[in-house]
């Protein structure tokens, strides 16, 4: 009973944290767009405060400049916390968690598909903008978060420079991703998110990570049932797929720590 209450408290804390982050990142009344914040939040959103790190990487690849600031911020956050940002701060993660609660058939993607996000990172964030800066295939132009937070609001406000067909394609991609996350828990984070791919590289070594107390584990598998990305927190502890939502730490054998 105690562990269930702890789990509920943790889920609430996570939702509050994600909600507060979504509001703060889109506070509208002030602008700090020369700084990128380590979360997938489109800087073209009418209310956005900070720059999106992926947007900055795409733009800098197009300009052929090394992005010292973006790499510095992402690297620092990654080496300290790994994918904690995915679990606790990303507004698009909050949306995915909400949508996945819609009753429907739930699917488990094969683990190999997790590598697609690295391809997205290399191709759509790195190579395409570097070699073809004007290509409609750079990540920002297909990013579902950008469509939701920027393209649609601006289109509704009647202020948009984009071509209608491009807008329709963006919306179709967004709808596809939303359908995916209804069926697959955190589907975008697991399969497609380039920011998740960057933080995933740090998950195994980051300062804060999940720790196991072997004596307290009786192999019941309950912690695996809690996991939104369907990994086994004991056997795949600190795997690149772990989004550090900390739901598994409501079981007493797993804790977040620095050791």
């Amino acid at each position: 009973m105690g562990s269930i209450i702890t789990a509920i408290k943790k889920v609430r804390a996570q939702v509050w944290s994600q909600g507060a982050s979504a509001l703060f990142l889109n506070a509208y009344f002030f602008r700090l767009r020369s700084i990128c914040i380590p979360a997938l939040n489109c800087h073209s959103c009418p209310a956005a405060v900070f720059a999106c790190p992926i947007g900055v990487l795409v733009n800098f690849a197009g300009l052929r400049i090394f992005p010292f600031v973006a790499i510095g911020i992402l690297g620092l956050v990654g080496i300290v916390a790994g994918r904690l940002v995915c679990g606790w701060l990303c507004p698009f993660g909050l949306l995915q968690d909400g949508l996945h609660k819609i009753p429907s058939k739930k699917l488990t993607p094969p683990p190999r598909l997790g590598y697609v996000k690295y391809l997205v990172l290399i191709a759509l964030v790195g190579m395409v903008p570097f070699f073809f800066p004007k290509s409609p295939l750079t990540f920002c132009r297909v990013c579902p978060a950008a469509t939701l937070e920027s393209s649609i609001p601006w289109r509704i406000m009647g202020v948009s420079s984009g071509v209608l067909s491009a807008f329709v394609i963006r919306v179709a991609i967004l709808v596809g991703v939303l359908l995916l996350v209804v069926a697959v828990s955190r589907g975008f984070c697991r399969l497609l998110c380039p920011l998740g791919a960057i933080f995933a590289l740090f998950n195994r070594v980051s300062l804060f990570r999940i720790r196991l107390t072997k004596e307290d584990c009786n192999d019941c598998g309950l912690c695996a049932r809690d996991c939104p990305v369907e990994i086994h927190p004991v056997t795949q502890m600190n795997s690149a797929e772990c989004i550090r939502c900390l739901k598994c730490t409501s079981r007493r054998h797993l804790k977040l720590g620095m050791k």
Partner: protein
Amino acid sequence: MKDKNARRHLLIVGGILLFCALLLFSVLKVRFPVAAGEKSEFAVIEYSLTDSIKRGRDGKFVVTPAQPGDFAGTGTTAKPCPT
């Protein structure tokens, strides 16, 4: 096991130093020559968000004035999506 953790800690310290150094280097040293003078990386980030900075034919940076598509004069403080 202890040895592995020591290596990990070394990696963390090295990583933190490296990424802090990148940020510091950007703040103190990185400047981009554009027509309006030298600009910091932070300024270039802000320009790039609205596609207001481009590379000219000679490879130098050119800050372009706001185009109709950049929504100049829409009376909003927000800068819309250039796409």
